[in-house]
């Protein structure tokens, strides 16, 4: 143990976050644990679940998870600021209905999709305005807009459905890349994931997101434009949800007001499972992506094992509770070790944002 720690050169950086070599800092994180769990479940299913190794599994898994993967990206940033957006699934529904209604009125799919994206952006802007500029709690605001946007969606189309979408577009939504089992849409997901990862982890805007989550006032005094940041994040959530809605519509070839209802819970579950703290200030995108895929793999394996949707929900719910609880347990563990450390010497400074579980003590 001594050997490894000395090679890291703790003489230059003596605060805990940099007290260990890089590989340890990368490996002993929650994100790594989620990725390990994902791989473990994947390999377990591959060997023990009949037909899990079939070529269709990965295709269906990615198709099923694409809307959740997409929305989880902006949702991660929003939850890191300590806010939440419950209205995303309703925006998916509204965008789906808009694409259907406009297409029925003779708009082309790209035009209808663009209109849906604009409306999604406006939906997000309304959320963001109420949260950031009026100063209302995001939980209350987005519960309200959850009902509002869903109501608009159902109101526009009633209980009818639009299903006559051009073959060209519905096939395109489902096509794989060449002969590989990977759907083409995954390219969009990867591009957006790269954009969001860059935004969150490599820009001052992203550092501001963490600062807001850790301490809004301090963030404000260090020059972070808190209001603008939050507004932008909610607008991003709106427009990405609308994009997910377009995909959802074309994939199922069905535009309905109740499309994707309840999806916000699956998105938030995946984000929290991926290691983002519901109190804000902590979390990383690769953990979230692993969290989404973990939920997808578990659901897919359980379905193949003939479990009904109720059992799948129970297991994902338990997993979520366990993951949120593990945060508290770990925080308690690190606080007890910190007390013990205090008896021996001066307390180390608190780790900077986003690194380590003691970040929000």
């Amino acid at each position, binding site marked *: 143990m001594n050997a490894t720690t000395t090679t890291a050169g703790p003489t230059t950086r003596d605060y805990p976050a940099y007290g260990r070599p890089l590989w340890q800092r990368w490996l002993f994180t929650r994100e790594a644990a989620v990725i*390990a*769990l994902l791989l473990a479940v994947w390999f377990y299913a591959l060997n023990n679940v009949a037909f899990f190794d079939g070529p269709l599994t990965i295709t269906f898994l990615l198709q099923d998870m694409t809307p959740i993967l997409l929305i989880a990206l902006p949702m991660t940033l929003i939850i890191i600021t300590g806010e939440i957006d419950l209205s995303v699934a309703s925006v998916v529904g509204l965008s789906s209905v808009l694409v259907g209604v406009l297409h029925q009125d003779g708009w082309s799919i790209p035009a209808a999709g663009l209109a849906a994206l604009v409306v999604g952006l406006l939906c997000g802007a309304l959320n963001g305005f109420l949260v950031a500029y009026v100063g209302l709690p995001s939980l209350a605001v987005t519960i309200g807009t959850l009902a509002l946007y869903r109501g608009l969606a159902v109101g526009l189309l009633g209980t009818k459905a639009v299903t006559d979408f051009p073959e060209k577009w519905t096939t395109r939504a489902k096509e794989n890349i060449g002969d590989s089992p990977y759907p083409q849409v995954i390219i969009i997901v990867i591009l957006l994931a790269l954009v969001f990862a860059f935004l969150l982890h490599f820009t001052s805007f992203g550092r501001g997101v963490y600062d807001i989550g850790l301490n809004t006032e301090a963030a404000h005094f260090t020059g972070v434009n808190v209001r603008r940041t939050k507004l932008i994040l909610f607008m991003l959530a709106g427009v990405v949800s609308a994009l997910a809605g377009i995909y959802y519509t074309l994939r199922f070839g069905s535009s309905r007001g109740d499309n994707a209802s309840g999806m916000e819970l699956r998105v938030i579950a995946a984000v929290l499972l991926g290691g983002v703290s519901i109190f804000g200030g902590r979390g990383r995108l690769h953990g979230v992506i692993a969290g989404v895929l973990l939920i997808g793999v578990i659901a897919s394996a359980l379905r193949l094992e003939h479990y009904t949707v109720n059992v799948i929900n129970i297991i994902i719910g338990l997993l979520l509770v366990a993951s949120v609880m593990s945060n508290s347990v770990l925080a308690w563990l690190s606080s007890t070790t910190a007390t013990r450390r205090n008896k021996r010497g001066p307390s180390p400074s608190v780790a900077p944002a986003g690194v*380590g579980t003691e970040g929000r003590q």
Partner: protein
Amino acid sequence: MTMKLHSKRACAIAALLLSGAMILTACGGGDGGGSSDEVTVTFLPKNLGNPYFDTSDKGGKAAVDEFGGKFEEVGPQEATPDGQVEYINTAAQQQVKGLVVSANDPKAICDALNQARDAGTKVVTFDSDTETDCRDAFVNQASAEGIAKVQVEMIAKAIGDKGEIAILSASANATNQNAWIKMMEEELAANHPDIKLVDTVYGDDDDQTSFDKTAALLQSHPNLKGIVSPTTVGIAAAARYLSDSDKKGKVALTGLGTPNQMREYVENGTVAEFALWNPEDLGYLAAYVAKALVDGDIKGEEGDTFKAGKLGEYTVGADGEVLLGDPFVFTKDNIGDFNF
């Protein structure tokens, strides 16, 4: 130094333990992998927890047990097409031999069904059909003409062939309900000129919505003489509302219902008679159609004949349709003989 590492390591260990626990719980699932000769039949109703489909799936299971196959019942919680697609995909992955589906949308689940058929699965729709090019056969519970006719006959008899009536349907794009309503309208116009259909409302096959829509119907149409509800959820909710309101006995109610749900209202006089087929027979027949397709006895073409266990010989009609038979009318006198 070791102390410094402690919290991080605790974190990692806890996470690994959590993973271990999760994997162990996942181990509970069986060893999977059906033998290749067995006829595996998966029933995919519109949603789970619906007594109608519980009954039809029971019939399906009885048939599958009879011919020695492997029966499976899966389905979404909400009756939505996207929920069904996940299970159709799973069936395709599992390469089940026969998939028996009641479609939540005639078109939205088509691509998924065809993908399953490409993987070798025979697709039979029952209760609610898809477009004809995405299934091998459709088991029709009753001809639309038969159902429309029996419902018009029942309501005409109940209100003395004269007055305002309304329809309380399922969702606005439910395939079969819409077909029946259209034919009822034609039948009314042709043979019952004194009956006026004043409104059609949609309870979405949801008990509370149907209940509320019944209340609204009675309020907005004070001269209403009768309600026809061609859906089991709708007629039960409407009967519950009527039996507690002052309109009981004044507004006639009929339609399609199940004996267990309607028993109370038939016995207390809210409903004189209602019709249905036997969903258990429907599921039973659907399972046999799936088996006949899997065995290659039929191809789903007009004129193909096959034997469906206790139900006897059936012939495939136009567009791959297999008709169960005429609807059955339940009254106070015979309802005691049925339990589903």
